């Protein structure tokens, strides 16, 4: 069978540090660049959350050393409400855009997708490099906004006008900081669209011989669908961003209504609508949730099959569910706006569409459980994070059914219940996807194994930690605790919840500290980890057919031929308990 080795067109890696590691065209290098961009952003984002968690737990305590670090934001060690809001804003922005959108898709998608479909690189390597560097510029501008004159932006990650559109008269941080924020997001949109275009073209055009659509690993399906969402959703945010920027600097009135008096000054604008921004923002914003979570779903399917030594239960249903979630995600943006005064009839339509996403989500959940059922489960670290993902997805998804109903949402909107919901399902679940992917593909990417023991310690601390952080928030939200209040102790009815705040803050610090275990494991293993085999997990997809780490052109100038689906584990009569996709073995 293996007679057909044609002459190999080996592509040699470029020489010189800059072409090889900085302005690289290699999708693997670009993937790692995205990963480290996300790692930097997540460290900043977590640090910010520690700061505002400290303030929420002990709002009247004075932290002298912090006063020295932030003389304007924390004069005398006491945090100002504006500083609190800017921390919250930057935490949300960095996490949603620069972590949850970059690492799962730009990072792992870039590295793994071309190899899993048997391609030597992305369809447009130059565009790929550009999309990373455009994203990098966006991050630089965003970091500049954190240190802008007048303070960091404080409109929240959703930047609702009119306050976000008025400039510095609406408060500190609404001046230069907010302008830089809008510019950064516009740049980010461009980078993401370039990336999405590249992923779609690569998936459609560069699949190896035999890699039919229905043989693609579910990770590829997830990245592909995510790209379609990004391609169609980011332009809408870009449009909104351009209009918001013009309202701020161009004297237009797209979002600013007439007759506003802000800080005792009359605003000279006419007839705009703040709701228009909400429509544009959430038309992007809801697909964005799936942009963050779909890659994690793909990874979870891949990991559950690998470590349960079973095929994914209901592969075709899983593909349909991914596509269904992506499709429905475009028609539910109104559920973020139930309290905006929309017609109750539209609200019912949005509500029904929202609840219908429960169907493909349940298909995925039950198929994951079906994959685990009677499997020979190996509780390796990546597997733990995949199971953790399923748990978080269910917990966060169930509260979504509450929030998707107009009547309940009118009460729960903008409370801690919403915080709990979206942190669990979009934030932490997606992060678990990233962790699972890291532990799973690290051997392939760097040729070394990460420590299993410390990986498990990291998992258990993080898993218990995130539930300790976010579970009490459901109760606080039902008790009526609103989001974005910098000092709950000012409100009598919130006073009883200070114990909750302190518990959550302590849990946050412990969970954040546990992430150092991950970081040390990551960097230690980069240099000192045990050498990895080509296929340490005995998995079936194409990335495991090539050396760890892969050569510059992935398959050594050759192209694999694919004979079977992605998850042939424990096939009766097979020589091993897995058959690789490029194996012609007859069973």
């Amino acid at each position: 069978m293996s007679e057909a080795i044609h002459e190999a067109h080996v592509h040699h890696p470029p020489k010189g540090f800059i072409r090889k590691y900085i302005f690289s065209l290699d999708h693997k290098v670009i993937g790692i660049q995205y990963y480290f961009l996300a790692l930097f952003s997540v460290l900043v984002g977590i640090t910010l959350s520690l700061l505002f968690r400290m303030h929420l737990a002990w709002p009247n305590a004075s932290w002298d050393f912090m006063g020295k670090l932030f003389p304007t934001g924390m004069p005398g060690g006491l945090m100002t409400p504006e500083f609190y809001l800017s921390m919250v804003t930057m935490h949300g922005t960095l996490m949603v855009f620069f972590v949850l959108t970059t690492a799962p898709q730009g990072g792992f998608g870039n590295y793994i997708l071309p190899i899993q479909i048997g391609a030597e690189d992305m369809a447009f390597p130059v565009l790929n490099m550009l999309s990373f560097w455009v994203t990098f510029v966006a991050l630089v501008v965003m970091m500049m906004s954190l240190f802008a004159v007048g303070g960091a932006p404080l409109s929240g990650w959703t930047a609702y006008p009119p306050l976000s559109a008025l400039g510095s008269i609406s408060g500190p941080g609404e001046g230069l900081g907010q302008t830089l924020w809008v510019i950064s997001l516009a740049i980010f949109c461009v980078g993401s669209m370039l990336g999405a275009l590249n992923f779609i073209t690569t998936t459609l055009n560069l699949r190896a011989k035999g890699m039919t659509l229905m043989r693609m690993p579910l990770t590829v399906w997830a990245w592909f669908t995510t790209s379609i969402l990004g391609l169609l959703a980011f332009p809408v945010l870009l449009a909104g961003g351009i209009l918001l920027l013009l309202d701020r600097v161009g004297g237009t009135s797209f979002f600013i209504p007439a007759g506003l008096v802000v800080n005792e000054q009359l605003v000279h604008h006419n007839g705009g609508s703040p709701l228009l921004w909400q429509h544009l923002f959430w038309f992007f914003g809801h697909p964005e949730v799936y942009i963050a979570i779909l890659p994690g779903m793909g990874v979870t399917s891949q990991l559950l099959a690998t470590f349960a030594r079973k095929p994914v239960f209901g592969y075709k249903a899983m593909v349909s569910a991914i596509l269904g979630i992506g499709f429905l995600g475009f028609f539910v943006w109104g559920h973020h706006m139930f309290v905006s005064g929309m017609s109750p009839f539209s609200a019912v339509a949005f509500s029904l569409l929202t609840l219908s996403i429960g169907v493909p989500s349940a298909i995925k959940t039950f198929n994951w459980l079906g994959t685990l059922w009677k499997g020979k489960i190996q509780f390796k670290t990546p597997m733990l994070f995949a199971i953790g993902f399923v748990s978080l997805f269910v917990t966060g998804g169930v509260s979504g059914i509450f929030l998707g109903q107009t009547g309940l949402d009118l009460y729960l909107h903008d409370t801690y219940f919403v915080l709990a919901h979206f942190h669990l399902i979009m934030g932490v679940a997606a992060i678990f996807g990233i962790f699972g992917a890291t532990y799973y593909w690290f051997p392939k990417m760097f040729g070394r194994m990460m420590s299993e023991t410390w990986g498990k310690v990291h998992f258990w601390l993080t898993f218990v930690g995130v539930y300790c952080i976010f579970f009490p928030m459901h109760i606080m939200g039902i008790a009526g605790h609103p989001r974005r209040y910098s000092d709950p102790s000012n409100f009598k009815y919130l006073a009883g919840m200070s114990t909750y705040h302190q518990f959550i803050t302590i849990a946050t610090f412990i969970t954040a500290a546990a992430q150092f275990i991950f970081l040390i494991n990551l960097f230690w293993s980069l240099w000192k980890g045990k050498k990895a085999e080509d296929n340490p997990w005995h998995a079936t997809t194409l990335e495991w057919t090539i050396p760890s780490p892969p050569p510059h052109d992935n398959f050594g100038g050759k192209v694999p031929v694919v004979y079977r689906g992605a998850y042939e584990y424990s096939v009766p009569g097979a020589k091993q308990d897995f058959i690789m996709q490029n194996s012609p073995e007859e069973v």
Partner: protein
Amino acid sequence: MPTTALPEVEWAPPKTSDNGHGGFHHDGHRGFDRGDGRGGPRAIPPADKYRIGMWCALGAIVMLFVAFSSAYVYRQGLSFDWQPLQALPVLWFNTAVLLISSLTFELSRRSLRRDHTTPFRAWLSVTAVLGLVFLVGQYVAWRQLAAQGIYLGTNPHSSFFYVLTALHAVHLAGGILALGFVLRGAVRGRFTSARRSAVDVTATYWHFMDGLWIYLFVLLFQLG
């Protein structure tokens, strides 16, 4: 315990990939079969990557202008301060220029399909020049409006006029840039009737920009 020895595998011949340089191959189609003898090559070869990439880009551009259009309709329906501008005569001229440029592009492509190199290059150059004329014409329109005291922030319709025409101009400038690359390739003799992917893809974009302008012109001046 299973061994980790890699199974015996078959390797296919390397694909024609030019790694993003040029993109002038029209023959890069790879027949697609399942590799197990059950499928056989597809009757219709899959589109080449430049074509797919272009349609993706157009999808994103459509969404951008759909977003602006819905903002336009929403803002118009909502407000009491909407004062529609009248179409300046120069805009009719610009529209004609852009329509003619699509025509000259097609004349150029027809020459290329027949391997008539000289008219191919000539019509291509005319197209690029007409594109530039359109941009200059749009600039003239902006100056004329400004001379009337109508600026970006004057009223919502003028805001949308400036935003939409500027964004269209930016996209068209991208098209002129692409035409420049194609012209360079044409001068170097890189295109034949069998190798014209880059020309075709650029033409798709150019006609799309033409159609987009007609749409914007109708939206801004003929509706409401």
